[in-house]
């Protein structure tokens, strides 16, 4: 294999894994920013997994009934309570934001700064909307329903602490992502990546990786906490 640091020919399958791992200069032939973001996401996966596994244990071991999420998170608009409606809307908002982000990455690589900025700001706006709805959910549970991390009137005492911890960490990640998106969008718009990266818009893709991760975590939270 005759390879420079960047253009190592790619071999498919296990042969490729072996030749990449034994490369003399670089194992992952991607920009270092991308590799590092993936490594960060891997660590974050483990953190959220610890929370969700802890939730699993708490729920499996309690002798008191676990509150039923579709009842706890139902909203009524003057009629019968609709189960999980706010959560469904939040899920759609986040999926939409993932879609706009994927398009933004695509337009970034096409060099279309204007559309990229619009799509990134749309993604950020949707993310902020998601956080707003989560804040509403929190305020409803804390103020109206009397849910505390140590007790709640619906069932097992640990429900509150699990809910606030997991959705709190996730909401924090979404909020950080909104700020991150805004900063990168600003840089795209002012031509920073033309001046400093030679027209290379990988930073948009790396930002996209983080945002999709945030959506991914929600897919798991939605399934394990709200639906189960």
């Amino acid at each position, binding site marked *: 294999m005759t390879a420079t640091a960047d253009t190592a020919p790619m071999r498919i399958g296990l042969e490729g894994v072996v030749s990449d*791992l034994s490369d003399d200069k670089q194992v992952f032939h991607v920009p270092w920013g991308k590799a590092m973001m993936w490594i960060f996401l891997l660590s974050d996966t483990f953190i959220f997994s610890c929370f969700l596994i802890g939730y699993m244990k708490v729920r499996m071991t309690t002798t*008191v009934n676990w509150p039923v999420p579709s009842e706890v998170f139902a909203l009524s608009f003057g009629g019968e309570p609709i189960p999980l409606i706010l959560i469904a809307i939040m899920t759609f908002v986040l999926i939409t934001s993932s879609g706009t982000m994927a398009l933004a990455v695509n337009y970034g690589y*096409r060099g279309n700064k204007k559309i990229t900025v619009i799509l990134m700001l749309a993604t950020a706006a949707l993310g902020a909307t998601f956080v707003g709805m989560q804040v509403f959910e929190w305020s409803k549970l804390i103020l109206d329903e009397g849910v505390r991390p140590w007790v709640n009137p619906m*069932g097992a005492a640990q429900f509150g602490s699990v809910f606030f911890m997991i959705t709190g960490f996730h909401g924090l990640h979404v909020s950080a992502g909104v700020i991150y998106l805004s900063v990168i969008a600003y840089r795209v718009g002012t031509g920073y990546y033309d001046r400093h990266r030679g027209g290379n818009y990988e930073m948009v893709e790396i930002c996209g990786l983080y945002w999709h991760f945030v959506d*991914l975590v929600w897919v798991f939270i939605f399934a*394990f906490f709200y639906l189960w």
Partner: protein
Amino acid sequence: MAQAGTSPAEGHQEHPLGIYLGVWILLFVLSTFSYMVDYLNFQGLLRWGLILLFMFLKAGLIIAVFMHIAWERLVLICAILLPPLCLTVFIGMMAIEADYTFLTRLTVFGEAPQIVAPHH
């Protein structure tokens, strides 16, 4: 100044927009199905099976297409996807221990299963 590791073949991934839009729609459809599992009040194995199925399908689509994993080299795919598999071992161990804790609470600590009635 280009970043190190940016070869024209790899650092620059452009795919037709259509695939993103297609996956996007699929994600909406799968989310609707997930929500229907609860709305239609499925129970038991059907409920859990469907919840997990839709969850993994959505996760797979997001990781493979939106996060471009499907187009990455196998070594990167392995480095990212194999470590989380170790979590399945962790989950299994914790589930076994949770069962033990639950049974201990019932038999040794004499806790009776209680239902807290919601008062609205």
